């Protein structure tokens, strides 16, 4: 885009100074392509923004470092701001404690669900402090709210009997 812009600039100067009106279509053409490129980049950046927003819902408030590596500092800034506004909103709902709306994306049918582990994950802590070792192909019967994150990440699979 920069190259196009410079070429255009030099042509405009030339047209103005030397009075060469035959350069005007070229200038217009380059200007249109500049506008198009700008539209494309803005669409790309906007799409990235929407994906980053979806990451908050998928991964929670802490992103894995592999993802953070791919984000620019402005995007991190935007992510933090989004996190803050979502948190303020959640606190304002549901009385004193606030309501965590990132849980239970679909209406839950039961308190505990049966899950099967699809990959080796390691230890996973349960509410009463003890932990469960998640190995491939082991099945567990755990409270729903603990498993949702992992189901979304694809580590666990919900089994309907």
């Amino acid at each position: 885009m920069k190259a196009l812009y410079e070429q255009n600039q030099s042509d405009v100067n030339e047209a103005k100074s030397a009075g060469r009106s035959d350069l005007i279509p070229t200038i217009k053409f380059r200007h249109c392509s500049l506008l198009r490129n700008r539209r494309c980049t803005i669409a790309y950046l906007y799409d990235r923004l929407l994906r980053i927003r979806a990451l908050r819902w998928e991964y929670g408030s802490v992103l894995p470092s592999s993802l953070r590596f791919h984000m620019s500092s402005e995007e991190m800034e935007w992510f933090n701001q989004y996190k803050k506004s979502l948190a303020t909103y959640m606190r304002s709902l549901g009385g004193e404690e606030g309501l965590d709306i990132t849980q239970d994306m679909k209406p839950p049918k039961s308190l505990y669900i049966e899950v099967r582990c699809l990959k080796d994950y390691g230890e996973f802590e349960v509410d009463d402090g003890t932990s469960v070792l998640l190995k491939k192909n082991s099945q567990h019967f755990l409270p729903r709210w603990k498993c949702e994150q992992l189901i979304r990440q694809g580590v666990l699979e919900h089994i309907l009997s």
Partner: protein
Amino acid sequence: MFVSDFRKEFYEVVQSQRVLLFVASDVDALCACKILQALFQCDHVQYTLVPVSGWQELETAFLEHKEQFRYFILINCGANVDLLDILQPDEDTTFFVCDTHRPVNVVNVYNDTQIKLLIKQDDDLEVPAYDDIFRDEEEDEEHSGNDSDGSEPSEKRTRLEEEVVEQTMRRRQQREWEARRRDILFDYEQYEYHGTSSAMVMFDLAWMMSKDLNDMLWWAIIGLTDQWVQDKITQMKYVTDVGVLQRHVSRHNHRNEDEENTLSVDCTRISFEYDLRLALYQHWSLHDSLCNTSYTASRFKLWSVHGQKRLQEFLADMGLPLKQVKQKFQSMDVSLKENLREMIEESANKFGMKDMRMQTFSIHFGFKHKFLASDVVFATMSLMDSPEKDGSGTDHFIQALDSLSRSNLDKLYHGLELAKKQLRATQQTIASCLCTNLVISQGPFLYCSLMEGTPDVMLFSKPASLSLLSRHLLKSFVFSTKNRRCKLLPLVMAAPLSVEQGTVTVMGIPPETDSSDRKNFFGRAFEKAAESTSSRTLHNHFDLSVIELKAEDRSKFLDALVSLLS
């Protein structure tokens, strides 16, 4: 120790805790596991399920999980060895063992704190009495403590003589006691056999808590039928257990017998059937089923040309056209299917097959799906033992576990296809073994070894399919040989397990008689033979009569076995 009240001492203890389930890889264990899972889901008991296929996997899994759980439930593994010795648990861990393997190890029976056996005590156990096996070691020290109370020297000499006499008496008593103890333990542990199905035990627990459902009853039926298909229990026991289950079936399914108030077609219905013994016949063609069921194939002697002719005679006797019989059973003419069972039974009687029909159960739901218990057993067994190398053994376990739920019928049908392949391969291998005389008599037992190049040999690397092959081979051999002595011999079967490591699986089957009590002495025999020749064996399976052996040690192992058993 034996748990007397399953509900109070087992279920209520476990209900508020997190438990770990170790489940062995056989169909009975899968069914028991499903019933227990259903109960736990009803009561929100947090559990973790880990499939295990041998002692090594059990030990590794235990080491990984032992910090996180204090209550462990073992299904179809662990009763026949000293668990505390193998697993070395902490003081506050408790094990609940629901196992069909007998004899139950005496340490497991007499340990009061950590091991609870979910086995009914009247299950013909014959456990030796406590005093015959265990003895407090403190008694001897008390006696020797009294010795040095001597006061006067003149009395000391007589006392010394008395003490010497006493000590020799005690030593002799000790030696006699120990010899008797060795005999008792040897008699007790010599023969391996199987007790009541774990799935039935779990169903009983569910019934006691009034939480039993038709689905759970079906799983209990499958567990029992698995024991019958794999020849683990005697015919008498099977019939008794079928009677017990029949009462439950009529309790749950009596609404279907009334013509007016029947349930909708989509509801599950279990019914008692006195149906033909042919494997998978309703999902296959009648001809294929007759050729690939061990009962008919061995009695018709289908590996010979003469046998094939007899089969044709049999079909002609019943008036069934060959074209009809060779197409899928569901597309046979309805007029032929109507009296099929009675016709086959009559003709079978003429050809010397008196037990063509057996007592079993069937399940229907919807218009299309009808299964006999043995169909589901074969399908699940093939899913679990399939040699497809996609992933580890636990993948197959999970597939087989899924196929038992009603919502996964596609997996069950896939299992049925695999089962057909398995049965066909079994019969072909048997035919080739008999035609090439691979079954040789070694004296006290028969021996057969599958070569590596045999087609489908990889299908027989797992113990359940190898066991099916060996039993069918023995049955067919009994009908093919004229040597009366050979008919009463047990069979030792060897099949290649892993080409890279050069190992073979060796399995021992008790002799085939009509009224056999299914007791297998090969477990101990293999152990002793391996010790005496220091062959490199791995006793990894929960059934002690199946071992892995290095191919090079095979001949010396066999020689040791021959000398041991003759």
